[in-house]
Each structure stands twice: as C-alpha cells, then as structure tokens.
C-alpha cells in the first residue's frame, strides 16, 4: 500500500488528466494506492498528461474547423483556422508536457543547472534592454507593416554592411554606450 495522499505535483498532474478523462485519473490513483511503484505512477501519469493535452489540442482544432469561414488575417487573407491559437497563454502553448519534463529533469538530475538557465534569462533581458536603448539613441523607427514584426527584422542592410558587420557594429555601440 502506498501513502494515502499523493504528492502535490502528482495531484496537479492528476487534475490536468481529470479535466479530460475523470475515470483515467481515478484509475491511476487506484492503482498507485494498490501498491504500484512510484516509477510506474510517473510513467503512466506523464503519458496520460501528454494524451490529455493532445486531446485538448485536437478538440480545439475541431472546434475551429467547424467555423464556416476562416478569420481575416493581415492584408485581408484568410488564415487557416487550424494554425490559430485562441486558447491564450497556457502551458500547452509554450511546450506543455515537454517543458514540464525538462523542468523536472533539471531539478532532479542537476539542480545547479538552474543557475545557467537564470543566467541565460538575465542575459537575454540585458541584451533586450540594451538593444532598445541603442535603437532609441539612433532614433530608428520600428518596423512598418510591410515587414514581419521581428525585433531584428527592422535592421536595414545596406550594400556595404553585411549581417555579421551589423552585429559587430551593434556590439561596438553597446560597449561605447556603457563606457560613456
């Protein structure tokens, strides 16, 4: 017999499964309490979460396909409803079970690696802020409607300036701005 109360993480994952398939969540809990090992529970639970997220995604796509006509996109063209994400910024949209798996592996196997993750995030934020600062200083306007909405897509390349040169020049400007 396993303990009566599963861990917080197990309960959270069971709730995800339960949202689509209540009997499956009940079965997993019943089997675990009957004495199945922890490894069995985690394997089954992760597969159940993946299946649940797939079912939710398939359900959303089916709902969108039932709309008689597509939604208008940029420049008047119709977007394929199956490619739209109308569900908002949920975990499934940023990686879902895969992201959760990566977080668990890092936490269990090499918790020190979180330092690198946070350093990467901090570095990204720093580069972003510095880029905004530099572009403001140069008085550049943002991208117009005819170009993709990408931060680096706004950099104009001249005949004399290649992309590596742009990167180098940007770095020189960044260092110069800091030294001022």
């Amino acid at each position, binding site marked *: 017999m396993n303990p009566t109360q599963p861990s917080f993480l197990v309960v959270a994952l069971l709730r995800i499964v339960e949202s689509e398939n209540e009997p499956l969540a009940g079965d997993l809990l019943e089997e675990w309490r009957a004495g199945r090992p922890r490894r069995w529970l985690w394997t*089954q639970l992760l597969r*159940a979460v993946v299946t649940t997220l797939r079912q939710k995604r398939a359900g959303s796509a089916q709902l969108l396909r039932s709309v008689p006509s597509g939604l208008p996109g940029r420049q008047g063209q119709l977007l394929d409803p199956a490619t739209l994400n109308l569900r908002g910024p949920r975990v499934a949209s940023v990686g879902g079970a895969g992201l959760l798996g990566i977080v668990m592996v890092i936490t269990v196997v090499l918790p020190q690696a979180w330092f690198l993750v946070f350093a990467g995030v901090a570095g990204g934020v720093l580069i972003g802020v510095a880029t905004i600062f530099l572009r403001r200083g140069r008085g550049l306007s943002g991208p117009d409607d005819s170009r993709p909405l990408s931060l680096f897509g706004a950099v104009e390349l001249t005949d004399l300036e290649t992309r590596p040169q742009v990167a180098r020049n940007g770095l020189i400007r960044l260092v110069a701005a800091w030294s001022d």
Partner: protein
Amino acid sequence: MPRELLTDFELMILLAALRVGEQAYGVPIAREIEKTGGRTVALAAVYAALDRLERNGFVSASLGEATPERGGRAKKLFEVTPQGLRAIKQTQRALVALWTDVPQLKGRRA
C-alpha cells in the same frame, strides 16, 4: 459506415474486456492484457483505444461507482456490443486466413 477490422491493440482490449466481464474498466482491462499478453500497457492508451471503440459502436460505456481509493472519481465501465463481437470474429477470420498456408510458419509452434 464504421470499419469492422480491428488493430491488434483494439483486439486485445476487446478480448480482455470480455474476459473481465461486467466490471470491465481501465484497470482490470490493463491488468488482463499485462497478465495474458505479457506486455505493459499505458492506461492512457487503453482509454484512448476504448474511446475509439466506443465511437465505432464496438463497446458501450456506463458510469460506475466512485470509491475513496479513486479519490471519489467514478469508474467508466465498458461492455462489448454485438457489433464489437462481430468485429472480433471478422478480425479473427482475417488473421486466420492470412496465417494459413504461409510456408515459413508451417510446423512451427508459436
């Protein structure tokens, strides 16, 4: 018109449900497959297959009791329909027909 031939996993699930009998839900069906088929199965895969079988009319489902061991969650009991039985027999016939007269398999035990 729904298809009548089953995949190997669907066939195993239907046969396991028949062996379990009235109290056929995810856990005993998965245990039956593990016991007789010698393979570990994911409960999520069992339910995905059962949902598919239900949509095709091969099984019918009803809600069972909710027990404390299940955290108050109800069981989903499955019963093989006459159409499901017909599909099992058709699949068996198709497999036997494929099986017979294969020279490589003659005189060998499985």
